[in-house]
């Protein structure tokens, strides 16, 4: 816990009856379910361990987009990304007591999501999200439907190529490129060194170039 509770004593040495005592409590989170929304991550973890599932609901709500995006980058399709996201949060729930607060909750959740993705033995499906279902056609009047379609096709190709990279390269590329984690943070998550992370990133980009070179 990062919060402190202080008892403040204003003390007048010459006058025994002259003390004023104030119990100073920093903005305490509301004990009700809706009160969880005002709590920081550390308080939410403590409340969840305390058995308050509504606190874990807030953790999920706060981090579900990030976790989903990591998973989506990994697999390149919505269905698998949904399953992996769910599994990541279930594992987080099981492992809450092991969260020591040495890293931020989001870094801890990155680690879980990446491990869930890395340990996925085989994917149910290949990246198959159709262009129509996943890509928004913005500014079609300006750039033209044809150009928008090409752009969407290319994006789908890039996603598919990323999802087919070797797993550690994929993890490194996803965390570094899309989530702005440092090489050190990625090394911590993957249990490797900064040098290995940079090498993985290099090979990920080199392989991505090869894969994209084959598909215009």
């Amino acid at each position, binding site marked *: 816990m990062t919060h402190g*509770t202080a008892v403040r004593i204003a003390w007048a040495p010459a006058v025994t009856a002259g003390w004023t005592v104030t119990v100073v409590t920093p903005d305490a989170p509301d004990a009700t379910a809706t009160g969880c929304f005002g709590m920081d991550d550390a308080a939410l973890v403590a409340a*969840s361990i305390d*058995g308050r599932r509504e606190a874990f609901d807030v953790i999920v709500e706060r981090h579900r987009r990030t976790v989903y995006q990591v998973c989506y980058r990994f697999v390149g399709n919505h269905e698998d990304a949904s399953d992996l996201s769910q599994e990541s949060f279930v594992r987080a729930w099981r492992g809450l007591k092991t969260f020591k607060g040495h890293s931020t909750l989001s870094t801890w959740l990155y680690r879980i999501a990446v491990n869930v993705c890395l340990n996925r033995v085989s994917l149910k499906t290949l990246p198959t999200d159709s262009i129509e279902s996943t890509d928004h056609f913005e500014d079609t009047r300006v750039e033209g439907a044809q150009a928008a379609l090409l752009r969407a096709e290319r994006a789908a190709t*890039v996603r598919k190529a990323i999802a087919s990279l070797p797993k550690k390269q994929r993890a490194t590329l996803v965390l570094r490129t899309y989530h702005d984690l440092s090489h050190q943070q990625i090394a911590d998550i993957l249990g490797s060194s900064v040098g290995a992370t*940079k090498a993985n990133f290099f090979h990920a*980009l*080199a392989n991505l170039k090869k894969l*994209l070179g084959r598909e215009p």
Partner: protein
Amino acid sequence: MTHLTSAELIDIVEGTLDASPQQHLDTCTECRQQVADLAGVLSEALAVAVPEPSPLFWGQLSQRVRTAIDTEPLAAGGWSRWLRWPVLAPIAALALIVVALAVSLPREVPMESAVANSEAAASTLDDGFAVVADLVGDFDWETAVSAGLIVAPGAADRAVLELTALEQQELTRLLQAELTRAKS
């Protein structure tokens, strides 16, 4: 000629480059081409967003997680369940009383008396506070500090250590009154 390592090439692409690799880069077209290729594919990858799922998806995901963990009770227990705000403030205050009394009492008075005093003082409060008093009796200073209970440092600490018995009583009374007020 020794070309740049993969790590050095990544440093260049990311703009965190030492001087010596830069010298090599100036003279080596092969490495320059590598850097350009890496930067190009990185830029292309960066431009690809994750498609936004249906707005309904997020609520569904939360519901799926909730359903999945509903069958997995996470046993509450251990000292962490005391890290709740309604409990923290009185613990901190009572911990101060215990520590202040224990430290300032004459040597012939056993430590237990100080703890008993604080428990007796707390007994006028309701059952919830009695539980807290029990807990405070078990709390050692290290635990209190590591649990994030911070007793105001500096002048107040030194002052408490120099209190007479009467002053200690008065301080205890004031703390009790304040805690009762804060609780109501």
